[in-house]
């Protein structure tokens, strides 16, 4: 794989645009980019033929957790079939494997010991040792994969936090030793909790290893949004500019922007999954730099101009698409009224259509981020977006 930084933000900003050349994807993936959440390698509801209707190559970048295959198929069977790309029929997709997925594979730090990290999974609590992990990786053959990490919540003791860094470094050594490709596709895992010193220590040590990029874990586990930038910066300061940085646990648009501002290139996010299951569809405007959204008003549906809840009865007869002029399959073919009906009668098609639209919209958000970086306007974009999100909260509400 090859990663190049194509545009650094400059002016003291750390955001950067890049291009990732990997696998048999014909065009490079432009970064910052979104990794789509998958269950056993496929999106939750979008089958391959519908995935093909989403923008390419943006929608070809998938996050897969090897732990989804703990029960079946066996590594031997997966190898016989030929690995992820063959098993899923997604030859042009790029799979990045990392154990934590924030939905079904949750780091369980209390079960973790020196032998390996522990996760809460649908199969119960499972400890994954480096040898077992590498067996899964070599059968799945993802394009990139993260080494094992001991992710701890923000409130653990200093001692526990320090141990998590020691273990994570140790497991990186183990994974590298067991990797036939010698680190060519590995993203070295970096943890350190809420301690700036430990974050720095871990990042520095991992940076010295022969890895292709970095997987930054331990975020989204209890630290506040306010303390995050300093922690992120302490990690980034210790990493080489030229190598790829992926992060887990920054799901929401505001969190993604924090990550981009710190210099992150790839984001795992489960935002789309949660929106979809809740019956929500993203509607926030994407042309943030161009338009002035300070004057957006709070609508009376309880929606906040960022998303709509299609279960609401006001959509029963709404024959407009979710977002006017959205080119996704859902908006081109169906109305809010229809999706409202599908949700009412508990039909899976509702989730399929919502996941398609939400994926399309969130990918478009990342596209806007990249455009803003390339145009040197990322800080403005960031500020305007955040201010716009808060506008409805701070606008005066008339008292009755």
């Amino acid at each position, binding site marked *: 794989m090859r990663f190049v930084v194509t545009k650094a933000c400059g002016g003291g900003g750390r955001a950067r645009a890049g291009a990732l050349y990997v696998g048999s994807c014909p065009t490079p993936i432009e970064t910052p980019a979104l990794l789509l959440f998958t*269950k*056993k390698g*496929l*999106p*939750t*509801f979008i*089958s*391959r*033929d*519908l995935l093909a209707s989403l923008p390419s190559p943006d929608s070809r970048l998938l996050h897969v957790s090897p732990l989804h*295959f703990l*029960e*079946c*198929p*066996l590594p*031997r*069977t997966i190898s*016989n*079939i030929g690995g992820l790309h063959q*098993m*899923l*029929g997604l030859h042009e997709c790029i799979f990045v494997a990392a154990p934590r997925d924030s939905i079904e594979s949750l780091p369980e730090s209390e079960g973790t010991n020196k032998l390996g990290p522990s996760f809460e999974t*649908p199969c119960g609590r499972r400890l994954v040792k480096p040898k077992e992990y590498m067996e899964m990786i070599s059968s799945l053959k993802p394009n990139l994969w993260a080494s094992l990490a001991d992710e701890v919540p923000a409130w653990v003791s200093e001692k526990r936090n320090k141990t998590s860094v020691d273990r994570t470094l140790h497991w990186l050594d183990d994974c590298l030793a067991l990797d036939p490709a010698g680190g060519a596709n590995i993203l070295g895992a970096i943890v350190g909790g809420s301690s700036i010193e430990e974050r720095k220590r871990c990042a520095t040590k991992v940076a010295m290893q022969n890895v292709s990029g970095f997987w930054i874990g331990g975020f989204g586990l209890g630290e506040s949004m306010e303390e995050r930038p300093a922690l992120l910066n302490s990690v980034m300061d210790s990493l080489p500019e030229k190598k790829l940085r992926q992060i887990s646990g920054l799901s929401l648009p505001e969190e993604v922007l924090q990550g981009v501002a710190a210099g992150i290139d790839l984001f795992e996010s489960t935002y789309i999954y949660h929106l979809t299951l809740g019956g929500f569809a993203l509607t926030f405007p994407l042309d943030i730099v161009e338009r002035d959204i300070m004057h957006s008003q709070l609508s009376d549906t309880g929606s906040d101009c960022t998303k709509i809840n299609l279960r609401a009865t006001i959509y*029963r*007869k709404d*024959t407009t698409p979710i977002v006017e002029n959205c080119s996704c*399959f859902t908006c081109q*073919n*169906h*109305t809010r*009224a*229809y999706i*409202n*009906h*599908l949700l*009412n*009668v508990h*039909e*899976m*098609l509702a*989730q*399929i*259509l919502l996941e398609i639209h939400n994926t399309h919209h969130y990918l478009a958000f990342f596209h806007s981020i990249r455009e803003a970086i390339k145009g040197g306007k990322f800080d403005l974009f960031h500020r305007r977006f955040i201010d716009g999100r808060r506008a409805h909260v701070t606008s005066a509400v008339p008292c009755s």
Partner: protein
Amino acid sequence: MIGTIKGLTNNQLEDIGCQIILGNTYHLALRPGADLIDDLGGLHKFMNWKRALLTDSGGFQMVSLLHLADITEKGVTFQSPVDGKPMLLTPEESIQIQNKIGADIIMALDDVVKTTTTGPRVEEAMYRTLRWIDRCIAAHQKPDVQNLFGIVQGGLDPVLRDICARGLVERNLAGYAIGGLLGGEDKDSFWRVVAQCAAALPENKPRYVMGVGYPLDIVVCSALGADMYDCVYPTRTARFGTALVPEGVLKLKHKVMASDERPIDPTCSCMVCKNYTRAYIHCLVTKDAMGSQLLSYHNLSYMMRLSRDLHMSIVEGCFPQFVQGFLRAQFPKGDVPKWVCNAMEVAGIDISACCVLHPSSQN
């Protein structure tokens, strides 16, 4: 369906060759409501389906789903599932609702009894069905765009069935359904009713056997002269992890599937069989939504392929050979059920090559 086929989008349905979808009037009238569908321009527009739609009368669901459903000359009385109030579905109202939904084919409200019912009730239901068809015809507001089909009733009694069929044919309807079957009767009784009704219905109009069904049933009914079918079986069985294959069914949940690297059906060219192994589907079924989606997709593709194959074999004059191939795949040991042999004999299809002869010579 209730405005959607389980987990498939319209373009996926078009891809697999689906030409017509059945909409459940009962469910649609409850949610989102017939008036809403009408206000939004009809069901085609509401769900953006560009091909054909058929709605049933709503009567069957009421009788089978609802508490205290009762049938009188006026119509079907039942308790509203929303608030328990007594309600009445008349032939006029059924047609009115179906006019609002706007399907291409609509079904008359019939008085349907289970085939296991005996006594005067069966005859009463048959004659009432004939009286109701006249009320349906009178109430039908859009005969130029919506085709009204009548439904032949009469239980398992050939005399009653004959009276009903002739009565409907006199009304010169757009098409005819054979109803009231698959309520517990044995297979021999089932095919005999289909055979008799098909023979009594005009050659140049569609014959629709309601609620059929299993692939084997469809092949037999087609041999007997039926043209149209509806069934929840393909998608329902998919949700339990069962795939339809030429050999019968494949239970993807079984442990043995966990290491099976073949596609569900090597002879199937659907998106699922072209891309996935049994082993992978096995790990999805009953656990992930995608599992039931992919199986529904395959099962519906299988049914579309079966219909296409039946059609082409008739057009090309090799229908008997197709039937023989179908039976050989399902019954490789030659143990074709007796009822199938009996039906094929009446249908004039020679399947002796794929049957182990049955020892008894019962008719």
